[in-house]
């Protein structure tokens, strides 16, 4: 069953078409990476699917709910970890997690359990009483994803989750995302080939707002006769592999 089905999803900003007639399916429980260069339309797609931006035309079904007509119902099923860390800086790590759980109306018992689970999974114990604004970029990203997951979403949107992180923090975060695969449907945007290859079940390649190809990393490599996902990607978007 598909968790997300988009039908001709389009978004224009004046004369610029950021997303152009997108038809994309994301299966329940899979991690799909939206891959593309800057300006490909990845973030705009995620912002539309996360109810942050209305489509100019087209629609999407999110777990059976129309994006255009049932945005409020969809909000109960999804969560997002935006490009910026998006944490409340003067609240502690624990207070940030509690805020998200409370806003989603989790029962006290459930709230305590999921918060405990997030603290353990994301190894937040050592920074639990520290204010989020005082944490390093890597810790803030970790908290950002934990805040998205604490409300037990059916679908999680991760918008460039490792942007600006050093290689160690990035690898750590990959491990945490990898461990979460299968429990929640995840739509991740990235322009890092390595990230898409390491984490995703399938990769959707976008260019200039249009979907070029969808498949597993291996399928994309086979399709283009490339030895790496990076070469396959360059081949798909029409660039010469160096």
């Amino acid at each position, binding site marked *: 069953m598909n968790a997300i089905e988009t039908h001709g999803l389009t978004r224009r900003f004046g004369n610029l078409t950021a997303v152009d007639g997108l038809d994309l399916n994301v299966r329940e429980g899979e991690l799909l990476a939206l891959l593309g260069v800057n300006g490909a339309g990845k973030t705009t797609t995620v912002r539309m699917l996360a109810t942050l931006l209305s489509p100019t035309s087209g629609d999407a079904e999110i777990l059976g709910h129309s994006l255009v007509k049932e945005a*409020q119902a969809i909000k*109960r099923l999804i969560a997002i970890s*935006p490009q*910026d860390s*998006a*944490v409340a800086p003067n609240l502690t790590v624990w207070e940030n997690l509690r805020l998200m759980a409370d*806003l989603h109306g989790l029962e006290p018992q459930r709230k305590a359990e999921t918060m405990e689970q997030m603290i353990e999974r994301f190894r937040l114990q050592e920074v639990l009483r520290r204010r989020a604004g005082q944490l390093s970029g890597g810790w803030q990203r970790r908290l950002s994803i934990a805040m998205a997951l604490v409300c037990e979403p059916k679908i999680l949107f991760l918008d460039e989750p490792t942007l600006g992180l050093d290689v160690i923090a990035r690898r750590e975060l990959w491990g945490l995302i990898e461990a979460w695969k299968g429990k929640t449907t995840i739509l991740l945007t990235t322009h890092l080939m390595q990230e898409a290859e390491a984490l995703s079940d399938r990769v959707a390649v976008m260019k200039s707002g249009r979907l070029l190809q969808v498949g597993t990393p291996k399928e994309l490599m086979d399709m283009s006769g490339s030895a790496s996902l990076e070469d396959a990607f360059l081949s798909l978007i029409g660039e010469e592999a160096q």
Partner: protein
Amino acid sequence: MRSLIFARRNALEILRDPLTLVFGLGFPLVILGLLTLIQAHIPVSLFELPTLTPGITVFGLAFMALFSSQLVAKDRGSAFLQRLYTTPLTAWEYVLGYVIPLLPIALLQSLVCCLAAMAMGLAPTFRILLLVLGNTPAALFFISLGLALGSVLNEKQVGGVCGALLTNLTAWLSGVWFDLNLIGGGFKAVCECLPFFRAVQLGQKLLSGADGVALPLGIVCLYAAAAFAAAAVLFFRQMKK
């Protein structure tokens, strides 16, 4: 209920910012002390506590606009609001969540100003409580104005507009620094149409027990309602961007 959850977060964000104490409380108290000191050394009654104290409480309320605008602008800039927009919070719950925590903070600030004035010689009377409560519409005006500006300007811009421009406008147009009758004419007429002077006038009347509370109260309430409506409209508009 959800707006109260959001309000709790906003209260913590503001109260844990040291600038809140420095600007919100420290600065008005310093001004109160300085002007009282000046009054003690000049032969005319310019800054007597019964007329000065309501003015200083209103001047202090101008900082509420700075706090609310900075909080909203910061949330917008950090994408924190984007995250919250994917939660079941409704548009009105956001607006109330920003306004609710600042109202008690504003009234507490007025009360502290009055207590400081009492320590400097203001006669203790139950009318001080009336003055504090009477500041509610002015507090709502400033908080809403901040919310409106924070919805359209970035953090740096609101620092300039609310931190410098609005606090100065409040001071100069409210008749706190000087008696408006000294200038009179068009300047006085304009000031009388604005909420700054009327909020101070309301406080002075409540503190002294003088008649004629209805007009300043009505004018300040009108401005508060207009600012709240503008805040809601501008906040809803930026939600859709």
